[in-house]
Each structure stands twice: as structure tokens, then as C-alpha cells.
């Protein structure tokens, strides 16, 4: 890889549309989440705000814009005794890494085809490891916010967030390791190409297990329900952003949703075939850039898969109660970690079996690995759940 001079235009073409697209999607997702939650809860959800000065409601699609305007004009309150600098920096630090990792998603927008290699960061040899490196920064932002607010709830939320994110990063990375192992590359484009050539990794037993672990850990990483302890409303008000209002709060909100997009995008890249889908052929020699039925089709597939995952996240948020801190930690260390380590072992054997290129052996390996993983998961579950079970009650006449 040579370092050829880039023009500013190249960089802008590569990054600005990405920011705009995901900011728009963020607005749409907030609306979608509120609507979906409302449907889950027997409500209507936002349905009034549409085109201003008319009575056109547009199903409340104007709500995000209205919320945004409200957020900007709200008073920005900094508590007395707070660390003003860090209080300001924290939301920015929460947003920037989330935005940054979007560049590492192998999204083949038609307009980036002609830009040179380095502005397409997903072509980086270590794209996946960069992804994890940068998402890890989010933890610091959360801690910063919790510490700088000088509020006990914020501090509790910050500490919870750090403990949770550090714990869940391990199963997250370990399940991504499996894909890296199978492909033999950290390059996002190559991972996608491999899946287009062979099969989506979610369709194999170890891939499915890894995907489930990854998705659960991703929920914890992005503080989504049922792992939303750092911002647990019924316990510690709003956790680390209790003392945030106005635009800073909006930045946190934006960062959280962008992080959701980013982590679902990584799940799509690693397990769900990236931009692969009907009408898209991945080109082996052109490193992940695809031949498409029409320009941008693979990007559309990619975004559709992201939204499928986000829909699941919304669904979970509407249905599940929250875990407790010790249970959360126990789940990460006693269930997810052993299972993902075992999964690496299983995937290693399966890879060797596949190298033999014998269909029967492959099938047998798949069956065995499925049985092993299923047994391990249910065994670990039995070990961890303790004496918790439904009870019988007596009646007095």
C-alpha cells in the first residue's frame, strides 16, 4: 500500500455522505423506535408532528425534527461543582468514536468507487481490530460524563457502564475472532467476500453461536435493554447523563444510536454477509467492491440488514426487564466467556474438517459441533440459573 497524496475532495466525498446518511437514519430510527414501542405497548406513538403550519401528520415523521429543535433551544445546565471542561467533552467524545467506526463498515456506496484505497478504511488490513479499538473509547466518554457531573447517580451509572462495557467487550471480541479465524483476514471487505463465496457465517453452528453471543454483547456495549443498567431509569434516574440537558444530551442520544448502527453494521459484516444479497456479485479481484444490478444495491442490502437487527433491539427493549448488576457480570463471565472460548475451539476443528473438502465429513462436523455447542449452552445455563424456578402456592379455604 503506498501513500499517495489525497485531495480534500476525496476525503469529503468519502466521509460527508456517510455522516449525512447515518444522521438521517438516526432521526428515522428514533421515530421508528417510538412508534414500534408504542405499538408493543398498546399506544399510538408520535403521530401529530408533520409538515409545519398544515394539518398533514405524515405519521408523526416530523417528530425527530421537532425533538431536535427542542433539544437545541433547551437550556444547557451544568451543575455547580461539575468539571465544566469534561462535562462538555464527554458527549463529544461519545459521538466521535461512534461516527468514526462507521467508516470501517464495508458499505459500497456508488460514489466511493473511484477514491483511492486509504479513504476506504474498510480496506485497511486491520479494519476489524480498528473497529474494536475505537468502540472501546465510548467507555471513557461514559466514565467522563459520570465523573464530571458531580452527581452520585451519574457516578454510579458511570462506574456501572465501565464495568459492563469492559466485561462484555471480551465475548464480543472473542466471537468476532471466530470469523477472523475462518476467513484468515481482519479485512472487512475480505470477510464479506468470503461469505459471498461460501456461506453467511450465521448459517453454520459456530457462526450462529458466535452471532448470538456477539448480538447479546452488542446490546450490552450499546447499553440497550435488558442491559441498560448504566442508564437504568427506575434505579439511578438516567445514570451518567442525569445532569445533561439540551444539546449535550442530544449528542449523547445521537452517539448512542450511531453506536447501535455501528455495532449492528459490524454484526452484518461479520455474520450476515455484509452487502451480499440477490442481485449483488462480489468481485474477487476488486477487494469487496461488488457488481450490482443497479448502483448502490449492496449498500441497500447492508442497511436493510442493519435495520433488521435494530428492529430486534427495539423489540427486546419493549419486552424484557432489566438484569441486576451481579447477574449482568455473572452472565458475561460465567456464561458468555466459556461459551465463546469453546466456540473458538469448535470452529477450529470445523475449519480443519472443511479443509478436507469432503461433504460427509463436513456434515458430520457440523452436526457434532451443533450438539457440542447446544449441550454446552444448556449446561452452562443450568449451572448458572441456580435454584430459580416457578413456585407452587397453597390455598386456604
Amino acid at each position: 500500500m503506498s501513500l499517495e497524496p489525497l485531495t480534500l475532495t476525496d476525503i469529503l466525498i468519502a466521509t460527508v455522505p456517510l455522516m449525512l446518511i447515518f444522521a438521517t437514519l438516526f432521526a428515522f430510527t428514533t421515530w421508528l423506535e417510538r412508534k414500534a414501542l408504542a405499538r408493543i405497548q398498546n399506544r399510538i406513538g408520535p403521530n401529530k408532528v408533520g409538515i409545519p403550519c398544515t394539518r398533514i401528520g405524515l405519521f408523526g415523521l416530523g417528530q425527530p425534527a421537532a425533538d431536535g429543535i427542542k433539544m437545541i433551544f433547551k437550556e444547557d445546565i451544568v451543575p455547580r461543582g461539575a468539571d465544566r471542561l469534561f462535562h462538555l467533552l464527554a458527549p463529544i467524545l461519545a459521538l466521535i468514536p461512534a461516527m468514526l467506526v462507521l467508516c470501517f463498515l464495508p458499505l459500497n456506496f456508488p460514489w466511493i468507487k473511484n477514491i483511492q484505497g486509504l479513504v476506504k478504511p474498510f480496506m485497511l488490513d486491520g479494519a476489524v481490530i480498528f473497529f474494536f479499538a475505537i468502540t472501546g473509547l465510548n467507555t471513557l466518554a461514559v466514565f467522563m460524563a459520570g465523573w464530571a457531573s458531580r452527581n452520585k447517580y451519574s457516578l454510579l451509572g458511570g462506574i456501572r457502564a465501565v464495568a459492563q462495557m469492559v466485561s462484555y467487550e471480551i465475548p464480543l471480541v472473542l466471537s468476532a475472532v471466530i470469523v477472523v479465524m475462518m476467513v484468515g483476514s481482519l479485512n472487512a471487505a475480505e470477510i464479506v467476500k468470503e461469505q459471498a463465496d461460501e456461506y453467511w457465517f450465521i448459517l453454520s453452528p459456530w457462526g450462529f453461536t458466535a452471532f448470538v453471543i456477539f448480538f447479546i454483547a452488542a446490546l450490552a456495549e450499546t447499553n440497550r435493554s435488558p442491559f441498560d443498567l448504566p442508564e437504568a431509569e427506575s434505579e439511578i434516574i438516567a445514570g451518567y447523563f442525569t445532569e445533561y440537558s439540551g444539546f449535550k444530551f442530544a449528542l449523547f442520544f445521537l452517539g448512542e444510536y450511531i453506536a447501535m448502527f455501528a455495532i449492528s453494521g459490524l454484526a452484518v459484516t461479520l455474520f450476515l454477509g455484509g452487502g451480499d444479497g440477490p442481485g449483488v456479485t462480489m468481485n474477487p479481484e476488486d477487494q469487496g467492491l461488488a457488481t450490482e444490478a443497479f448502483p448502490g444495491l449492496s449498500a441497500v442490502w447492508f442497511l436493510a440488514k442493519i435495520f433488521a437487527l435494530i428492529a430486534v433491539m427495539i423489540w427486546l427493549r419493549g419486552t424484557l426487564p432489566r438484569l441486576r448488576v451481579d447477574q449482568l457480570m455473572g452472565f458475561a463471565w460465567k456464561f458468555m466467556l466459556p461459551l465463546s472460548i469453546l466456540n473458538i475451539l469448535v470452529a477450529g476443528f470445523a475449519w480443519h474438517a472443511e479443509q478436507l473438502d469432503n461433504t460427509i465429513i463436513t456434515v458430520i462436523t457440523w452436526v457434532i459441533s451443533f450438539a457440542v455447542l447446544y449441550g454446552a449452552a444448556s449446561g452452562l445455563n443450568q449451572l448458572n440459573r441456580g435454584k430459580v424456578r416457578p413456585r407452587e402456592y397453597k390455598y386456604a379455604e
Partner: protein
Amino acid sequence: MSSPTATAPNYELIQQDGLETSLLEVSMGPHHPSTHGVFRMDVKLDGETVVDLQPVFGYLHRNHEKLAENMSYLASMPFTDRLDYFNSMTNNWAYALAAEKLVEIEVPERAEYLRVIMAELTRLVNHISLVGFFINDLGALGTPLLYAFREREKIMDLFEQASGARMMCNYFRFGGLRNDVPEGWLDRTREVVDRFPDFLDEYEKLLCENEIILSRTQGVGCLSRDLAISAGITGPMLRASGVNYDIRKVDQYGIYNRFKFRVPYTDDDVGDCYDRFMIRMLEMRESIEILKQALRDIPGGDIIGKAPKIFKPKPAEAYARVEGPKGELGFYLIADGTPKPYRYRVRPPSLINLTVLRDMCLSQKIADAVVILGSIDIVLGEVDR
């Protein structure tokens, strides 16, 4: 029975050889999303663990008892609505019972039946919204709560049709009820009651075997049988601690002796949040049984008995209690021959049940403290009066 002292598990900080950790003192409330009103808990935390907890209340004190001593007996009936604003019907009933003890008044048959119907509907309202709030405290973003409110709404409509108000019903009178129910009300009630078990089935299927709910509630906030009895806990909370005690069975006030119903209670001496949650779920089914029988047997006739024009009891004392949805709700009245009570005292179940909060929360996690508070089922209007 062992000594009735409320001893809490001692929590010792590992100060000598461990890390010197400083306690975090958090004042939860009075403005906190899950303190169920203006209630405050001074919590001392060691990390996430509750080391000490001091409930602070009185933010909603409205001088209810003193007010009632300065007005006629009947005039404080609307104030009883505001005690536990979820269950105005049972509050009314307890007060009416106390007044009826002071002056012997016959309550007509139909009124007795309607009283039972109203009380059991109130129990459904209370338990269903309590369960909703409880799951909400567990962190389930309102979905179970809104399902519960959908059902509550139907019963509220019935209350509104009967009494004109959805929550502050003010429906009971000494010797009967204020007015008869409108035409068709009983049929509508039958419809609601018949559909209620379907909803309960759905709710139980969704919640009672949910792994997260099980692990969040079992073994959390245990209240032993001895402590429950010695602290004077009543209602579902007492039965969840393994004591079979229901005033509807013990006193058989009203006409409860005519109905066939069972009282669910636990056998083991655990008494955790799951038990309290489940006892309420099971009680709703029994309430439905009572309602079905009452709606089947309800006679016609008068709605209010012969009461004196001016309610002026002879000097006497009376204490009457009912099995409110939250526990034993009692009214103690001393009459001195004037139209005003000399002393008027409420025994609020919420307050008394709240007294064991500290014992249940110690050495639990902070998240559990919220859940335990939710499982006690308090209404601050009744705690502070």
C-alpha cells in the same frame, strides 16, 4: 415463636484488612422515578450494596385525621378517597363500617352485594396496576404496565358509570350506597369480569415464568414469617411471608361468609418479592370467583338503609377494618355525642407495611431496593395521610 424483635442482618464493612472503601450516601427521592410518589430513602451504599436505608416520609402530609375531627362524620367520606387513591371504594367501606358500628344501621341486601362487587373490582384494579408498576421497577419500560392499565381502564369505566368518578368515587354511605347502579351496569360488569381471566392468562404466560423476572425477584427482599407478624404486616405481603390470614375470612365482615373463595399463601418461610408478586396474581383469580358469585346472586331492592338524618352517635368507640388490597385498613372512631368525631384515626396498611423496608433492603443491591419498595405496594397518600 421466637423473639419478636426486628433484627436486621448486620452488614460489616471490611475496613481493617480490605480496601478502605468510603460509603456513598444517596438520597433517593423525593423526586425519583420509582419511589411511587414523594417518598425518600436515605441509602448508604458500599459500591452497589445497600448498607443502610432510612425511609423518610411526610412530604404528602395533608392533616387528614385532624381535618376529620373538625367536620361531620359524613363530610370526611370524600377525604377517605384520597387516602389510597387507587382504592377509594375499599377506603369508603372501611370508614362506613366504622361509622355503622357507632350507630346500628341495617345495610340492605343489594347494597351489601354491591359493596362486595365494588371492593373486589377495586382489588383487581389495585393488584393489576401494582403488578404493572412492579415489573416497571424491574426495568421493563412500561409494557406490562400499559397492558395492565388497559384492563384497569375497563374497571375505571364501570366505577365512573356507577359513581360518577373514576378514582375518587365517594360512593359509600353509612347504611348503604349513595345511589343504585345504572341500568345495564351489572351486565357490563359481568362482561368485564368474564373477560378478565383471559387477560390474566396472557399476563401470567408473559411474566410469571420469565427468566429475568424469576432471577430478579426470587431470593430478593426476604421477609421472614416472624418478622412479618411482629411488625404487623398485613394483606398480600403477610400471606406471601407464609401466614394464612385474611380479614375477609377472619372477620367475615359484610357478606363475605356467603361466598366460596380461597386464600392463596405460601408455605415456605421465604417471603421474597416473587412470592409477593405471585400472591397478588393468584388473588386476582379468587376475586374474580367472588365477583362471579356476587353478580349471579345479587338481589334487587333498596340501596340504603334507614339512617338518622343527622348522624350524631352516642359516646362510644368503634374500630372497623377491611381487607384492603394492600392490607388491613382500619378506622378507629371515638364519638363524644356531637356530630363530629372526637378522635379519628386511620390504620393505613401502606405505612405499616413500609416499616420493614429497611430490614428487607439491607445487604441487597440498590436495584433490589427499588424492586422491594415496588413489591411492598405503597401509596403515599395513605402513608403520609
